[in-house]
Structure formats: C-alpha cells, structure tokens
C-alpha cells in the first residue's frame, strides 16, 4: 500500500497549522446577535455563518466551556479569518482577544457600536467579511505532510455492522494517520461505557488510564441520577432497530474506531491536544455536539461511521460518511462518501479498506468535496453543561 499518499494540499495559517478548507467565518457569540450575523453571511456567497442560542446567564464551568467552543471554532485551521458579532463590546473583546491569538485576521461588530441597530451591525459585518473573503481568496493550497492533519472520529445511527466493519475500518485509517505522525480524537464518553477496561489498557500512562475510567464513571453516575435507564436513549431507537441491545454492546463496537495505537490523553470539551497521536475527548454522545467539540479543538476533518445512515456533518471540518452496510451504501448514494460494505461481504479486508479510506482522507483534506459539503448539510451545535442564571 505504498501508493497511499502521505501529504495533502492545505492552506498555511500564521500559527503553522494547515487548513483543509478556507472559510471566512461570521460568528455570533450570543443568541440575540444571531440574525444580525446570519444576515451578513447570507449576503456574501461562500461565507460561513455559525451562531449559538446561548451566551448570557451562563456562569462557572458552563460559561468557560461555551467560551472555549466559540474561541476554538475561530482558531480552527479551516478558518481563514473571522468576523465576531456580539452585543456588548466588553464580552465581545474577551472572545476576540483569545481568537486573535491564532494570528488570523479577526474583526468584531458589537450591537453596542450601532446603538442596537441590527441592520447597521449586519452592514458592518458584511464589509468586514468582504475584506476577509477578498484576502482569503488570495491564498493558495500548498503541500503539508499528513502529520499536519488532526482528524475527529465519530459514529451516528450505529448498528451491528458499525462495530463489525465501519468502525474497525476507521480504526485502521486512524492507525495509519497516527503512524505518519498525525493526530486523531474520539469522543462520546458514554460510548466507552462497558469497554473502558479495554480502552484504558491502551493508555500511554497510568494517569491517562485513570482519566478514562473516571470519565466513564462520572457519566454513568450522572445517568443513574436521572432515574432513567440508558437503554432507549443510548442505544437509541435506531440503534435498537439495527440490533444493538445495550450500551456495553454499542461501546465495544464503537471503540473499534479508535484503532489500536496508545491513547495519549483525555481532552476536555474543545480542548486542543498538547501533542500528536491519538486522544479521547470527554464529551457528549450526541454527534452534532461531539463534532463541534472536535472542531473547537482544531480538527480539520472528520470521519463519521453509520449503520442505517446519518446525513449530519460538521460545518467547519469536512465530514466523511462511512458505512459497512451494503443496503445503506446502495440506498444513500449521495450521503455515503466511503463504502466499506466490501468488507462486510468478505471481498476486502479491514486493513485494505483502511488504506483506501486514508487515500480518501488525503483527497478530501486537499479539497475534494464530501456529499455533505455539496448539499450544505454542515452545522455547529454547542454543548451546555449547566443551567442559566
């Protein structure tokens, strides 16, 4: 498999990272500025809008987690520059200051500055985003080693074929990326539950092993406190239809997408990895939130495995949809980017499919569009971990 490429064409960023995309972002940092920001982005073809329903009345860890997600998305290598839209200038500057640490152009628009005139705020954001788009279009892709890639790995609407085929194939691709010096992250803490003893054995050291087991126990206790069973929620209805009976069964299949390399650390939501290699993220199991956590940590590309199918993709990082289920691959021709069903049918082995997937990863990193990008599926979904004041 020496023909598998070991480099991709990316956009060089001031902090040394490589974008697989070249988005100009208009980011609203709180719900009441969303329309002003969205209107501006809609005025400029190709400019990406991301908004949050939250941003006021948050405190403590929840406030910090919300800030980390906003700042992290701006700093993602796929963003060429960002216009950050908020209400009061003080809060806006707090976010913008952290976002600007990436060295990328960052502009701000506060409703304060326009005396609460939302249309004037949109007009200002249009002019800023226009300038950033003009500058971004002058950038050209250049060669980067595969080691410059940070890949998020997710699953959604899993069934029994996910654990048998799509997840092990993704795991083989993750192994290949890690072996070339790249970085990968797998989240959804609840989906290590029942498999944490196996995952923890791959921890790089005892502290990481303990962090893995502790993260699972915290989630398990949080679920138990709700007075509800996890079954029916995770595994959800579509998982159960697909043959998964329990969270342990789902987890044992889900962890296959981590591959087989040592686990270097457990990241908090939106936390950037300190080094290269394989990481876990202690985060939500709902895939839209999980993917936003990865993007905020800096992932420039996502793998997303599915059994029955699942159209959702991340807005900032191209998301490669993978299934091992033959009827899903046949039915969802404009959703599934990578058909792993030859493995299910015994016509291809997992290592070969993993190499084939890695080839697609390099092509998508270099600009080949995913179906989700063509159809404009992408969105960001912010996680909250506390109630409002």
């Amino acid at each position, binding site marked *: 498999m020496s023909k598998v490429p070991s480099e991709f064409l990316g956009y060089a960023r001031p902090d040394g990272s490589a974008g697989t995309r070249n988005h100009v972002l208009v980011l609203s940092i709180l719900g009441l500025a969303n329309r002003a920001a969205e209107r501006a982005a809609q005025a400029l073809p190709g400019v990406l809008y991301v908004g949050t329903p939250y941003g006021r009345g948050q405190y403590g860890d929840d406030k910090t987690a919300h800030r980390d997600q906003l700042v992290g998305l701006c700093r993602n290598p796929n963003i060429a520059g960002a216009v950050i839209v908020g209400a009061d200038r003080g809060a806006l500057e707090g976010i913008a200051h952290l976002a600007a640490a990436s060295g990328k152009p960052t502009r701000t628009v506060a409703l304060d500055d326009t005396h609460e005139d939302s249309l004037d705020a949109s007009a200002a954001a249009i002019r800023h985003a226009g300038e950033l788009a003009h500058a971004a279009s002058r950038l050209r892709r250049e060669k980067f080693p595969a080691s410059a890639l940070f890949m998020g790995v997710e699953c959604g609407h899993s069934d*029994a074929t996910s654990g048998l085929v799509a997840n092990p194939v993704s795991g083989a691709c993750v192994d290949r990326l890690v072996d070339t010096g790249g970085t990968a992250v797998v989240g959804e803490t609840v989906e290590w539950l*029942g498999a944490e003893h196996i995952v923890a054995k791959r921890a790089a050291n005892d502290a990481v092993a303990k962090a893995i087991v502790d993260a699972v126990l915290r989630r398990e206790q949080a679920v138990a406190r709700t007075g509800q*069973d996890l*079954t029916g929620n995770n595994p959800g209805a579509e998982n159960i239809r697909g043959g998964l*009976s*329990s969270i*342990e069964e789902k987890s044992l299949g889900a962890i296959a997408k981590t591959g087989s390399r040592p686990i270097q650390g457990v990241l908090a939501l939106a936390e950037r990895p300190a080094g290269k290699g394989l990481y876990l993220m202690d985060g939500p199991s709902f895939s839209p939130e999980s993917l936003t956590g990865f993007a905020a940590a800096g992932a420039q590309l996502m793998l997303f495995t599915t059994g029955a199918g699942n159209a959702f993709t991340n807005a900032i990082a191209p998301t490669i949809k993978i299934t091992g289920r033959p009827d899903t691959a046949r039915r969802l021709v404009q959703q599934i980017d990578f058909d792993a069903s030859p493995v299910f049918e015994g016509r291809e082995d997992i290592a070969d499919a993993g190499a084939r997937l890695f080839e697609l990863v390099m092509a998508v990193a270099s600009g080949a569009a995913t179906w989700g990008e063509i159809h404009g599926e992408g969105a960001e979904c912010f996680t909250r971990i506390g109630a409002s004041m």
Partner: protein
Amino acid sequence: MEITWNAIAIDPADGVAVALRDLTAGEKVIVRIGGKVETVTAREAVALGHKIALRAHAAGEPVMKYGARIAIATQAFAAGDHVHVHNIKSARARKESK
C-alpha cells in the same frame, strides 16, 4: 473469497453471533468464529445485524460478545433464539445502579 457462513461470532468466548443477512426460522445457520465454523438452527427469524444465541443461557447469566459482557439475560433462552432487548438487559448505567 466466497462467503460460506451467514453469521459471525467475534470471539471464541461469545455466546451470541451476529446475522450477516436476514435469517429465517428453521434455517441452518453457519457461524464463523475466528478460523472455525459452527452451526446452529435458527428457532425464529433474526434480522441482519441482530444476534442469535449459540448456546442456551439461564436468566441472570452474562451474555458475551466481542469477548466481553454486553448484557445480562433477563429470561432463559435456547441456542438459535433471537437475542435482543426482549431477553437481555444492560448491566450498566441503569436506574437500579448505585
């Protein structure tokens, strides 16, 4: 490579196999377990991706897949039975848990 089996068990310790296609009641099911092949007769229909018991389980017995416990049997079932949420239950993150 031609497939000669229609279900797969991942680990020799597993008490259940995964159907690789829809299985019908009374059908002789060929199960691949590692390099070996075993047969079991399906006592009921088992859909693709769903589990079929390789041996009888008593109520309360752990159910193994991937060489690990995936659930506890909530009622006895026989080899060839469909194994799913009607006869097995997660042992983790339940309201009964401490």
